[in-house]
């Protein structure tokens, strides 16, 4: 490979591990970070040879198309062999747009990417809800991949003076106009590095109860995550979603509050050290991968935990 790009929307853990993966894959040749963020961040893993800085806020949906057009234009002129995206809301929207614009192949939600023969990436992704693992190769270039957060290790050291080239915003006219930002959730801590995670599912029954779980997690200083069901019901943001279409986590302790354990969820958390399931259904799929099962209403247990923590003054 002559050149690999990692597209980042910040300089957080997921972005750094993606950049480190790109460095590893390009094995000494050129590796660039395409940073889509209002401000430039110059600290990246050793081996990143440069930054293309696109000064746009990746949180804003109207910017998806603008960023996709700019990344496609950059890729047409610099011809990278592969472009890696994190499988966050931005990456999931922009990567397929870029792939279609460049008439090239794309693989979603990869959990493994490595170099194969003839310089073609070997991409593995779970499919059919994690029941199967497909191995995929791409015949065209650039090979475009979205990578599930949390599957690659965080780099140990960063160098702080990676040279950035600011990309001039092209045609900023958009046919999508932002009317209102309804900020739902505080920015979430990156779940991938958490030692202990409390995760909530539909069994919590309401967004208020999820927020109680989040408050409890905050209080004891641990992470909070959610099942796809809880995200779909509007209890929690995408950033909190654990599983096939969210983040992969491997905490030391994972406590599932009212999560039945669809295979999609299990594929993102079954590698945890100890798994404790709180569920009224003793035969829910999650119990098959759990070390402890508390057969109780998770809201009741949440309340008891809140009381216990208060009385202990922690």
């Amino acid at each position, binding site marked *: 490979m002559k050149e690999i790009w990692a597209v980042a929307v910040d300089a957080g853990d997921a972005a750094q591990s993606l950049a480190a993966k790109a460095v590893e894959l390009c094995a000494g040749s050129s590796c660039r970070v395409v940073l889509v963020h209002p401000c430039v961040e110059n600290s990246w893993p050793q081996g990143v040879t440069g930054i293309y800085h696109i000064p746009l806020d990746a949180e804003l949906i109207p910017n998806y198309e603008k960023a996709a057009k700019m990344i496609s234009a950059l890729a047409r002129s610099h011809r990278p062999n592969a472009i890696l995206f994190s499988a966050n809301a931005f990456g999931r929207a922009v990567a397929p747009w870029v792939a*279609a614009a460049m008439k090239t192949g794309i693989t979603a*939600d990869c959990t493994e990417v490595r170099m194969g023969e003839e310089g073609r990436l070997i991409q593995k992704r779970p499919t059919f809800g994690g029941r199967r693992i497909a191995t995929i*190769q791409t015949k065209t270039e650039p090979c475009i991949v979205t990578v599930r957060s949390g599957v690659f290790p965080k780099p140990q050291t960063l160098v702080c003076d990676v040279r950035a080239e600011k990309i001039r915003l092209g045609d900023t006219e958009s046919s999508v106009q932002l009317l209102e930002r309804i900020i739902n959730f505080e920015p979430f801590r990156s779940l991938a590095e958490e030692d202990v995670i409390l995760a909530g599912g539909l069994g919590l029954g309401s967004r208020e109860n999820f927020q109680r779980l989040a408050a409890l997690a905050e209080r004891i200083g641990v992470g909070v995550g959610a099942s796809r069901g809880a995200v779909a019901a509007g209890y929690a943001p995408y950033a909190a979603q654990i599983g096939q279409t969210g983040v992969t986590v491997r905490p030391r302790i994972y406590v599932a509050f009212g999560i039945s354990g669809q295979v999609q969820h299990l594929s993102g958390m079954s590698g945890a050290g100890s798994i404790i399931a709180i569920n009224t259904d003793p035969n829910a799929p999650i119990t098959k991968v759990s070390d402890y099962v508390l057969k109780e209403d998770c809201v009741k247990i949440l309340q008891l935990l809140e009381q216990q923590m208060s009385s202990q003054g922690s």
Partner: protein
Amino acid sequence: MEITVLVKMVAKVSYDVVWDEKSQDRLSGDQKVINPADANALEAALRIRDAAGGSVTVVSMGPPAAESILRECLARGADRAVHLCDTCLAGADTLATARALSAAVQKNGMPQLILCGRRAIDSETGHIGAQMAAMLGVPCIPNAIEITFSEGLGLTVSALSEHETQRLRVDRPVVVTVCNFINHPHQPTISGMRAAKKKLFCRTTAEELGLPPEVCGGNGSPTVVRAVEQGAFPQRRARYLAGDEESIQFLCDLLTGKGRTP
């Protein structure tokens, strides 16, 4: 407003599907249904049509069996159906699928609004909306949780980003992918099923859409599936705890680092 809804036929319980080595097909021996989020997209389309006028066309690419889900869409209230059915389309990856669907969608003039589910429950890529938007040269709004249309304001969409819900005004034409909690789809009624028999059902081929064989199906797909293996989760034997004080204390100690990891 002219609205096109893309629907995919999927196996009812996607993770019970058996990968068929011989046909390299994912749909062997299971009940076929409309991909759940696509049913939500159809429901959203029907509500906009009923409020603002126009018509709803459903389009599906798939084997002959996919006719049944298109018929069901007609029974639910869609006005016409287009079935893109051609053996040369088999084995298409998302790029080749989006290319074929884009050709089908544009065949009788560009619709104002193209809707589909945010992802299919079988392959779970979520690519098609954005790929078609790029090919058709229109914007794509992913993860919609509300779509409204009024003469004054036009089309407004509330959609989820990573941390937010954003309300957007969009010019048409546009592709919108919907979350499955945007609405509760109505089931077909008896009168709906009766009416469906008289509605236009059009079956079309790649050739009729002007798609040469080299851009269709496996030939037109830049990604190749090299292997499919069994995925497995480490099974554990759970200890069952009672919901008593002792268990709560155990949990508390564990979470605050006082207890030992089991």
